[in-house]
């Protein structure tokens, strides 16, 4: 990793244990802040598109992982599954960026979790995401 790359915040915990999460990642868990669950991704060469920006698929994968983790954390369930997800791409990510996902729970029922996430890099917002998760197993 070149030293032009921003550092991950201290205390970041790797949450990519295997499968596509590890193949596309790694993704990191950060400490909660201001009522939001927070996660991080450092943009690597494999994450790019041919225009030199972060690929939209990586941003959506990151959002899906961050919001799924949050669904499990707030529900205590071992398994949650994505039912729907909407992503607005509001700005490009660049190589070496550390993108932070700030995830909030809008509403939780016995079987469903409604979530929103803002994906930011320093002062820039790269994506705004809303989604619905189904709690599969308590």
């Amino acid at each position: 990793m070149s030293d032009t790359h921003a550092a991950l915040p201290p205390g970041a915990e790797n949450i990519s244990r295997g499968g596509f999460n590890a193949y596309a990642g790694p993704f990191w868990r950060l400490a909660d802040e201001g009522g939001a669950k927070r996660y991080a991704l450092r943009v690597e060469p494999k994450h790019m598109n041919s225009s030199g920006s972060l690929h939209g698929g990586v941003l959506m994968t990151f959002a899906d992982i961050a919001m799924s983790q949050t669904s499990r954390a707030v529900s205590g369930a071992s398994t949650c599954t994505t039912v729907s997800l909407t992503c607005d791409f509001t700005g490009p990510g660049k190589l070496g960026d550390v993108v932070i996902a700030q995830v909030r729970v809008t509403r939780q029922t016995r079987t469903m979790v409604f979530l929103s996430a803002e994906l930011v890099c320093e002062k820039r917002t790269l994506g705004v995401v809303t989604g619905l998760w189904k709690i599969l197993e308590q």
Partner: protein
Amino acid sequence: MTTPPAGFTRTELVDPFEIHVGPVFERGSKGARRFALIIDERHLNMRGVIHGGMLMTFADAALGQAAWDVCDHASCVTMTMQMQFLAPAKLGDLVEVTPILTRRTRALMFFRGDFTVRGEAIFSVASVWKILGQD
């Protein structure tokens, strides 16, 4: 190397992340291409079904290829994507989609896609693309 499904050829991918997670396959002519993904071990989540992030990446790739057909390889970017996860898909499944152009304006392209495995809908997407440099 993954063997293409019968009747399909390998799509020429240019984005590093799509090359990382591919290959993607296609058949049919420009503007009416059908795209396919064979689910392998790299694409799975810890429950052993395709990861939502992989499906969304395949969607962005397939609809992006279709958008390129429409705007003749002009620079274009995804503005928004809306997705519904209808059913899980498993290792070895062939996921297929023929992206549909819903409407095109001077600057925007509206696409939708219904993704199937063995003819059953598993994932559905709608997206809006902006052609850069067009008002």
